[in-house]
């Protein structure tokens, strides 16, 4: 089973990377780009045959405790399959 997790900075937290990318895109001529936010993407694979419910709980725990920094980031489990 594979879970996909997206981790992003919370709204209001400065995102220097996203800002710099946006500014550079604008400079390259992509003036229509008004905002870029950069986050992280993880694919976590499991090898034991567990049901989706169990895996989801596990992934939530892992995302909360390891993949994200809850003080500035939030996460979302995109997909489990």
């Amino acid at each position, binding site marked *: 089973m594979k879970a996909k997790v997206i981790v992003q*900075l*919370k709204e*209001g*937290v*400065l*995102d*220097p990377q996203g*800002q*710099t990318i946006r*500014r550079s895109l604008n400079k390259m001529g992509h003036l229509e780009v008004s905002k870029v936010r950069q986050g992280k993407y993880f694919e976590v694979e499991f090898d034991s045959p567990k049901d989706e419910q169990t895996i989801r709980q596990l992934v939530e725990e892992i995302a909360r405790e390891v993949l994200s*920094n809850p*003080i*500035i980031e939030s996460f979302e489990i995109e997909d489990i399959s």
Partner: protein
Amino acid sequence: MTLDLIESHGLTLEEYERIKKRLGREPNLTELGIFSVMWSEHCSYKSSRPHLRKLPTKGPQVIEGPGENAGVIDIGEGLAAVFKIESHNHPSFIEPYQGAATGVGGIIRDIFTMGARPIALLNSLHFGPLEQPANQLIMEGVVAGIAGYGNCIGIPTVGGEIYFQERYSHNPIVNVFCLGVAPVDQICRAKASGVGNPVIYVGARTGRDGIHGVTMASEEFSEDSQSKRPNVQVGDPFLEKLLLEACLEAMKAGVVVGIQDMGGAGLTCSTCEMGSRGGTGVEIELARVPQREENMSPYEIMLSESQERMLLVGQKGREEELLRIFGKWDLEAVVIGEVRECPNLVVYNKGQKIVEIPNRSLADEAPQYHRPAEKPRYLSELIRWQDLDFPQPSDYNTLMLEMLKSPHLCSRRWVYQQYDHMVRTNTVVVPGSDAAVLRLKGTRGGLAISLDGNSRYCYLDPGMGAMLAVAESCRNVACSGARPLAATNCLNFGSPENPEVMWQFIETVEGIAQACKTFDTPITGGNVSFYNETNGAAVFPTPVLGIVGKIDDLQFARESHFKDAGDEVYLLGETRAELGGSIYLEQVGLPLCGPCPTVDPSQEKVLQDGLLELIRKGLIESAHDVSEGGLALALAECCLAPGCGLQVEASTSLRPDYYLFSEAPTRVVVSVKKKEEAEFLQAVSSLPVTRLGTVAHEDFQLSVNEQLLISIPIPTILREWNTSLDRVFGIE
């Protein structure tokens, strides 16, 4: 104004009355916010200022003492060194990486706002014991944050110190120091002068970062999820690099009249302080302030602590030039106001005047408190180590290895390899020696810098601990071949409202004052960080001293480690049995006991002056001060960097373990070329000196009173000592 609102701003009713009197009316909410940050302990030094006055701040070398963004001293050849230290303790506990990173960003801004190019960063870190995984996480994050910021902006992190003690588990101490260099005539000041001159905002946009008080009860603040908003500032070292280059370019072009960074209390602090220093008023329009988030209130804009922002006063008529320089560096720069004659801070929002406060009432007329002080009870209950009966170690080899790999004493390689300590190609003595040494390009000379402060001693005796910190910092600088010139300090304490803490603070300041007078190292600035406590348990009194020294000719720069096998090893200074607060006692499982070692500053000064003279006569190959771990550890450290051995035959009337592990100050291990030995002995005659042994090729062998106590192959020591932190942090 409700009582609630006043209290939630950290103001007392008396202070509120004072505000009303000063204004001649009730403040509005934005004004209340402005007063509350400017009159906070952090900005106003209301509990510490009366005591800080005791510090020596003058001397022929001092160009700018406390009061500016950073201290400035004359280092000869037309150059000035600009330096300061800051704390970022609380943010580093909340979010170690960003907290430490933004601390570094802040202190760098303090330096380049003075017109100096930053050339060195150092840090003093205090964490809880590494046995606790939570403390490991904090340390790992703090170190990565310091590295992340300093490396990216391209300023080398060349030194520092790290301590571990339970009291820092919930309150780590993260102090960062930065030093820059500028031609003496290019120093810039944080003054708003020249009525009619434009006030310019440059750098990052303002967001809702770090707005104080979080739990505002008013309508304005309860409307959205304010309180859930992350109150963590994120650093942008790339933007700061651009700011640094652009500001230095603008100052060089002569179009900057005054400049100050927006650090704590952001726009509020920079506007009223610059006006106050210049004896002028500053008028700004908030609608022109670049904003990162929508619908920010005037309150939020004035109090935001977004990083990487600067406020400067330009020259009327030359705005275009200024804006062009910032444009070249892709920076947003906006004229947001003007310097006015009437010495008030005046803030407009979309044309409507919303704030008018006399600058001085904010910057200089904050309340001051002579808070009650009382000698802490614990001090009279301290156990004296002399009263304890503990056996001599049965196996010195094992003990020695245990000490070498203890977090207190092991190599800091894991830390400083994460710091780019060589960028800018000035680092002549890299981390791992007593002080960092940086060359001054274009001259033959250089600077030596050291940060020190053993808070175990300070806990046992704050006044003596503070003197020991000054003495050690100066000694480190002297061991590098430099003459100590001036000092900065960061004072980290618990709550000043606790009389016992206040007592510790006062003792500390007096200790620093006395020692700095003796060493002729005036204090040029610093920082006080109070309220370092969790659940009523304060951190140890933690003064951190930073000493800057000058080497006129870098051929006389010295490192702490031995150079060649066959060199003779001597100890300058006397070994007294002073084990209170020592690592040895902790290693053998004893509680923290007193009394701490004692230093006589004038005796110390004689030793350091003598050492410097010996170095300048070319008689000394290496010099290393004896500190934590005592003589045995100092000797081992001398061997480890080059990987050479040592053969010591010492004699003493003390118990051998006292002799080896006493942390008595005012001692330096030196090595001397065989052929210089006679001349050395003659030149050293006025100092206490003992021959210890000879630098060897392989083994570390230490005999005391003809008994071989320690004999370990260097590779074994090296492995344990070098990789101890690697193992803690799980490097396979």
